[in-house]
């Protein structure tokens, strides 16, 4: 009897030992796969899949098991439910994805309680990272592009007066607040700030842009949650002839996602945005990233700023799993291991600021133009290196808490 139980213990020890040597890390991916914003989810999902496919061997003998769930509409309710399920039922050790700020905001108390790291691949409202010590953000804060755009718009584009128009949810308010802070500091004047409805559906942008047209500012600063909204606002901008009326379109890179750019046509030409990525960025990592993307998804599919951040997000998760040798049960340790992580990715050099757990990255002023081959492209007008989230640097509002 005793021998049997000893044998049993030994067998158990062997099984456990083998388990410790090669862990399978469950990663919950929360991205919108339904509704009008589904293509945002797909842009990041494709980058995740591509990274996992090409780099699974990097973490051997450990493995990742990706469990995908639909983030749902940009209200956060569904995301909170399914992410809670991922934690309690599927026992995921890491949560990632999150296109929409409301999802990340709703989920912050859950990950704090569950001690599960939440690695954000998009959601950009600046103060999100302050909501939980388990949040790490690889994408951007709305302030990353919008704050430097303020000074750039005044000094380089020549905007003296600006009307702002934004989709009415947290990142929209954040983006316009950031732009306003930078722009007024530089000496510019904001003539109007127009909320354009909820992000759930793509509105008819005409009444909002007609109002801007009638106000005759030098420039229109627009924030929309990219994707279908971007295509919609560009259509209205073109139809109403705002550029002809002398109103330049500026904004964060959400306005001209690379995967929608070719369909935008002439209306988009001359648009100037601030952003961390464009398909045309000239660096060796991006060339490789683009080549692999086209190989996997065809020549007409383009990665965009969300895909680039998604790629770096999975890269950071993989590097951290490797660093911890698959021991990812302790969420706090995982977050600590991510602090200070840096790489040269498709966006150029990026780093996780150990103090804020937010990204430090380069921002580029990008202008849409027609390339010699007839396609639309984005050219870099200026690069600002090593941009931090100024909202937290300046301690504005909830970023200061």
């Amino acid at each position, binding site marked *: 009897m005793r021998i049997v139980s000893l044998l049993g213990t030994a067998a158990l020890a062997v099984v456990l030992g083998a388990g410790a040597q090669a862990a399978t890390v469950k990663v919950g991916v929360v991205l919108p*796969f*339904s*509704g*009008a914003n*589904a*293509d945002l989810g797909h842009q990041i999902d494709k980058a995740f899949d591509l990274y996992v496919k090409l780099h699974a061997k990097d973490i051997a003998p450990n493995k990742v098991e990706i469990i995908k769930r639909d983030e749902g509409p940009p209200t956060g309710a569904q995301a909170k439910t399914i992410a809670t399920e991922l934690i309690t039922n599927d026992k995921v050790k890491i949560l990632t994805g999150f296109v929409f700020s409301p999802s990340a905001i709703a989920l912050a108390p859950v990950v704090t309680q569950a001690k599960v790291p939440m690695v954000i691949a998009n959601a950009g409202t600046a103060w999100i990272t302050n909501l939980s010590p388990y949040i790490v953000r690889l994408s951007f804060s709305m302030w990353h592009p919008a704050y430097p755009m303020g000074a750039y718009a005044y000094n380089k584009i020549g905007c003296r007066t600006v009307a702002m128009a934004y989709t*009415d949810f947290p990142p929209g308010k954040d983006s316009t607040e950031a732009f306003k802070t930078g722009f007024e500091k530089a000496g510019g004047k904001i003539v109007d700030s*127009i*909320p*354009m*409805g*909820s992000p759930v*559906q*793509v*509105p*008819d942008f*005409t*009444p*909002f842009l*007609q*109002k801007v047209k*009638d106000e005759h500012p030098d420039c229109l600063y627009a924030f929309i949650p990219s*994707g*279908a909204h971007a*295509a*919609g606002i560009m*259509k209205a901008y073109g*139809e*109403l*002839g705002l550029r002809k009326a002398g109103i330049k379109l500026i904004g964060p890179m959400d306005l001209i996602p690379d995967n929608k750019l070719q*369909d935008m046509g002439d209306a988009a030409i001359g648009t100037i945005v601030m952003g961390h990525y464009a398909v045309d960025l000239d660096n060796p990592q991006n060339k490789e990233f683009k080549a692999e993307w086209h190989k996997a998804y065809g020549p007409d599919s383009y990665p965009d700023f969300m895909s680039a951040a998604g790629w770096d997000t999975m890269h950071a998760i993989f590097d951290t799993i490797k660093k911890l040798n698959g021991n990812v049960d302790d969420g706090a340790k995982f977050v600590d291991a991510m602090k200070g992580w840096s790489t040269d990715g498709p966006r150029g050099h990026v780093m996780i600021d150990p103090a804020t757990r937010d990204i430090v990255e380069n921002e580029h002023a990008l202008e849409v133009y027609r390339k010699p081959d007839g396609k639309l492209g984005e050219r870099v007008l200026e690069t600002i290196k090593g941009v931090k989230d100024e909202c937290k640097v300046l301690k504005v509002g909830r970023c200061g808490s």
Partner: protein
Amino acid sequence: MPHALNDFISVLFDGLAYAMFLFITSVGLSVTMGLMGFVNLAHGAFAMAGGFIVVSLARTYGIDFIPALVIASVTVGLISVRFEQRLYRRFYKSTDLEQVLLTIGLAFMSIAAFTYFYGPIPKSVPLPHWLQGDVNLGFRTFPTYRAFLIVLGAVLIAILWFVFEKTNIGAKIRAAVDNRRMAESVGINVDRLFTLTFAVGSGLAALGGGLAIQLLGLTPSFALLYLVLFLIVVAVGGMGSLKGTLLAALVIGIVDTGGKYLFPVAGTFFIYVITVAVLLVKPAGFFGRE
């Protein structure tokens, strides 16, 4: 031009274009509800089907926008006849709840089916050159597509008015809406009349769906997303009334546009204020029978 006048013209123009879309899409729903008391919540799905047919015709077969619109509305009109004869007809005597469950179920099924085939991402169509850009009317410019919507809407209203008020078939429809039993007893075949109006109404909805691609974008959630708006137009206008639907579409279209233009902070608040106010004073809508 004075600023206020310019604002006013902007609101009126965009509001009119929007109202025309609402009218074209909702009028069929109003007439079917007035005629048969049938609650067709799948009406938005017919509109959406029209939109996707236009997308397929234009994108896959390279057919121009206008012919594609015509083909789509005729096709949906014909298909809707099968739905009416095979499915809806069984439920005319059923309770409202059963009708609502049937048709909302159809709407959900259509969303799933169209998502399967077309994906959830908004679709667009290439417009012919003459519909792009803007037209100059001397004192200011207007987007051509919206001007086209207003003209098309006006033409359709004229045709519908003529058919309703001046033809035999219009008289029969009005008679059947007013008092169906009496109409039947004088020998009007209300069932056949209904099939006809249902087909025309669905065809017009499909036309509205096609026109909406450029206006609002088209996704499979269209079937339910804008249904509330169509139902509001029908309720505010009064079921079965052409005049009422037109007036309601104009009021809702212009008030919504004006609200967004002048007080964007209020969102869609004004639509609902108008709806509540009208229904408080006239529970059956502008021209509905109490």
